[in-house]
């Protein structure tokens, strides 16, 4: 256990140093992530303005008012800060393609464990670095929020964030494992990114989708990557539905943990079969 903690600390320290080398990058990068939201806010502002001219004030779209939209997008920034895994799948694919995956097979390191630790370290660094810009933005925009959620809902929110991290990690890791069978992971990854962008709630609240579409999207775990935590915080998902939502999310996490392990196992078998 001590060993593991030492490894954590080393990884953390190196990651931090690495990020500090490019100081220009560092400072601006975090704030700039909020820029796309600005255009979304204006877009929805314009949509609501149009609705106002025809239907008068106080219109809502799928239960979301104008302020709700802004609050929603800001919250998805948080969900995605937990669930997005840049470079994970492509990194695995690349390691497989270039043969560097061997180092995980030869040395007594478990690949998934290592990647998970590394990712945790990176995320921690990111949160520390991003805390101030995030806090600033949220403080400035506090007027858009309908207030703090109840303690139970808030706990559920936190739980959904942690589950979102795990889900995002193991899902993308599994996609990366496909690299053991198909050399090009990037196409699959692209499809995943595309679907994820539109159906995770990143672009719009899933509640907006009409009937059949909505049901289809709810069957897929993508909603937990952006939509779910935001909806929980805003009180759009409550009570039994909330409990179920968390349970199903946990189930998805377990599924992908198993799937990533299984694909890794069989993938390695196949890989070694080629006399690497």
């Amino acid at each position: 256990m001590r060993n593991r903690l030492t490894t954590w600390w080393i990884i953390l320290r190196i990651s931090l140093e690495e990020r500090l080398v490019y100081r220009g990058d560092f400072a601006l990068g975090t704030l700039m992530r909020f820029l796309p939201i600005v255009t979304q806010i204006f877009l929805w502002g314009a949509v609501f303005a149009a609705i106002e001219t025809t239907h008068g004030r106080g219109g809502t779209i799928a239960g979301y008012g104008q302020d709700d939209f802004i609050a929603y997008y800001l919250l998805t920034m948080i969900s995605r800060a937990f669930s997005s895994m840049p470079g994970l799948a492509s990194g695995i694919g690349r390691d497989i393609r270039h043969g560097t995956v061997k180092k995980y097979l030869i040395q007594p390191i478990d690949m998934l464990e290592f990647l998970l630790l590394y990712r945790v370290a990176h995320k921690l660094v990111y949160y520390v670095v991003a805390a101030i810009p995030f806090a600033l933005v949220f403080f400035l925009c506090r007027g858009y929020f309908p207030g703090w959620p109840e303690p139970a809902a808030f706990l559920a929110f936190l739980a959904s964030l942690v589950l979102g991290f795990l889900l995002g990690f193991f899902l993308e890791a599994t996609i990366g494992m496909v690299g053991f069978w198909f050399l090009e992971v990037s196409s699959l990854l692209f499809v995943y990114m595309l679907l994820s962008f539109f159906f995770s709630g990143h672009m719009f609240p899933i509640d907006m989708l009409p009937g059949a579409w909505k049901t289809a999207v709810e069957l897929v775990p993508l909603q937990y990557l952006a939509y779910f935590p935001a909806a929980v915080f805003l009180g759009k998902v409550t009570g039994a539905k909330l409990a179920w939502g968390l349970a199903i999310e946990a189930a998805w996490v377990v599924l992908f943990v198993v799937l990533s392990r299984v694909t890794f196992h069989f993938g390695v078998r196949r890989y070694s079969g080629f006399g690497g």
Partner: protein
Amino acid sequence: MSLHPSYVKVFLTFARNSLVRDMTFRANFLIDTLGSISWMAMNLGFYILVFQYTDSIGANTGWERYPFFLFLATGLVVNSIVHALFMTNADEFSELIRTGSLDFALLKPIDTQFLVSLQRIEWSSLGNLVFGVVLLGYSLVQIGYAPGPVEAALYVLYVLCGVAILYSLMIALAASSVWLGRNQTLYDFWFYITNFSRYPREIYRGRYGDPLRWLFTFIIPVLVAINVPARSLVRSLEPQTPEDWVLPPFAVVAAVVSVLASRWVFNRSLLSYRSASS
């Protein structure tokens, strides 16, 4: 013997070489083309969803469903051209100038900015261009408006101005990596800035919106790139503010000034260029 190469012929050779290369990696080419088309299709899907809840975007702006699709189509056209001609080159230039590998480009008896900006053409972006033109045609039909030759020519002119403005921003940012080092933030920056340009100007309204609109129209004229050509075609949106009269000629001026400014930045960056040691 003339001192200057025929820039047209050189460009055609670039185009040809790029095509040959893209065809060697046919699978990638297809995937890229399909990929960008799917992306655009989903985007369109998003707006179709939005229009389930409203008739137009913005109060009294005239951007109803089909005019808005025309706007999207124009965005596609402008961006696909910028992608096809300049995107890869700007990325590579940024990398070359940062790592000091630009030497060979500096040896050639040809304008360096021309060489660096156009040597690689991404034919797979043309899929988007086709999609854009089709959407454009479809929207015009639905609006029930057929532009005459003058309007069509002006549209093409404004599209080219838009391309020039976006190109200038792109290459200036890429060149600045010689001073700023690794360029991920720069690339993101370009993406975020042009993100603003993908929406009608009219949505930027209010205490923060008006200054933003002003900033991105007159200082960094990205808002002009897609708005001006789109608006020039949408008949139902007769000029509603003084700005609407000013913007088309301004677009042309802005395009010229942008390209000149980008050239200045480009040349400055070459002065600071440091060849990699051997």
